[in-house]
């Protein structure tokens, strides 16, 4: 396959072939990383990290990825965003940065901001999260983690637990995974069930879908857990009741398949108890670590740097 994408804005812009291509190149990048901690693939190039909203994790992950490729990083995060930048339009900020940097990573609370940025930027733009809309590199690293574990995505039983109504990671992961031959089980409190449109889209693609309001991890290869946020509940008591019913602890692991894995986009609050961390099922820290080779591969791909 020939890579043609200049910007990485939404996972919905990716075909199955393009996702497979990224996962394959990420694997290669990880092998390179094992041989040598740094490379000179991005020597002399500058990445601009524009974080209009804080996300230490995502920002650091891109920074590390760029530095391991031999490149440099500049940028700002929410705390350092001056009123000057805050008063300026995204379009203007991007036009200026576009002349400074060879690749731009942007996180902004306004939905669609990354798409707009890409229209005003001569350099490639990677969306590091645009409000509740998209965070495509998160989805790609999620898929990479699954593929690394099972060798592929087809034929797997996935179980997604938590806030399925508002959770951005869940929506993006689902719209990517529906391109594969998988079975899905959604577990959530009734207040946070998956949007009907999302279920319909899966059914249209003939993906078997089960929905439940009871935590039962039986018959799953992948259990993807997300946070249930207090703000979603008008009644705090209702939140307390619901929160406790969806905690993954050692007891809930008993129903798991032997080879199953548990994932979480982090940060975790209390939805996975600490006792699970040391079990053979836990993959959430490795999942975060997988962000590095995936982002390294993407930085090279959008920069037109061939490393294979």
């Amino acid at each position: 396959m020939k890579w043609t994408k200049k910007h990485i804005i939404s996972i919905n812009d990716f075909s199955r072939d393009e996702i497979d291509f990224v996962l394959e190149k990420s694997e290669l990048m990880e092998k390179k990383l094992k041989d040598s901690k740094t490379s000179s693939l991005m020597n002399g190039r500058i990445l601009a990290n524009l974080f209009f909203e804080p996300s230490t994790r995502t920002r650091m992950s891109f920074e590390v990825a760029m530095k391991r490729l031999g490149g440099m990083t500049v940028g700002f995060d929410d705390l350092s965003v001056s009123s000057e930048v805050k008063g300026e339009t995204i379009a203007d900020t991007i036009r200026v940065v576009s002349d400074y940097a060879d690749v731009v990573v942007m996180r902004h609370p306004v939905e669609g901001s990354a798409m707009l940025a890409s229209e005003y930027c001569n350099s490639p733009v990677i969306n590091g999260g645009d409000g509740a809309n998209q965070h495509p590199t998160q989805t790609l690293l999620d898929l990479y983690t699954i593929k690394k574990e099972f060798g592929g995505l087809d034929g797997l039983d996935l179980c997604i637990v938590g806030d399925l109504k508002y959770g951005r990671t869940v929506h993006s992961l689902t719209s990517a995974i529906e391109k594969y031959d998988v079975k899905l089980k959604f577990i959530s409190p009734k207040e946070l069930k998956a949007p009907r449109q999302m279920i319909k889209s899966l059914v249209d693609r003939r993906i078997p879908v089960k929905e439940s309001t009871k935590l039962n991890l039986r018959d799953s290869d992948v259990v993807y857990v997300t946070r249930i946020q207090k703000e979603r509940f008008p009644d705090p008591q209702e939140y307390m009741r619901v929160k406790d019913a969806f905690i993954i602890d050692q007891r809930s692991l008993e129903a798991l398949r032997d080879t199953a894995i548990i994932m979480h986009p982090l940060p975790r609050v209390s939805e996975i108890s600490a006792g699970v961390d040391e079990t053979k099922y836990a993959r959430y820290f490795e999942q975060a670590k997988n962000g590095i080779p995936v982002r390294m591969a993407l930085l090279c791909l959008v920069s037109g740097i061939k490393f294979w």
Partner: protein
Amino acid sequence: MIHVACKQHRELKVEMIKNGIVIDHIRPRRAIDVLRILGIDGSFGYALTIAMNVPSKHIGRKDILKVENRDIDTNEINKIAVIAPEATINIIKDHRVVKKEKVTLPETIVGIIQCPNPKCITNKEREPAESVFLVKQKEPLILRCKYCEREISSPIMLS
């Protein structure tokens, strides 16, 4: 009741205008929106006939508009397609239909629909992001905002 409507309908069809446009097969109760698209209000100085909820062979019930001394451009036709996808437009010159065309929904709808998502960049005043919707599905209609990816089925016109 129905009889009256039918009669009225027949009369409307018979009575022609000299020059102007006749927009037929508008989805029921959408004629007012079509007038808004055409920018026609109470100050319009020529003959204007509005028929609403009249029986239609094709779509059950329909609205019809006859506007004297008015032309129509592609941009207006595209806008009408979004709210009245079955509409047909007749251009009348000297009492005769000189052109008849069906509206067609374009694949991308630019600058016509308001994104219902208040957090969308197209609703941020100072940013130069014009509303762009992509037609995901025609029947039933599903449109997707190019920017925030919100999907909608009953579009609201930009005011």
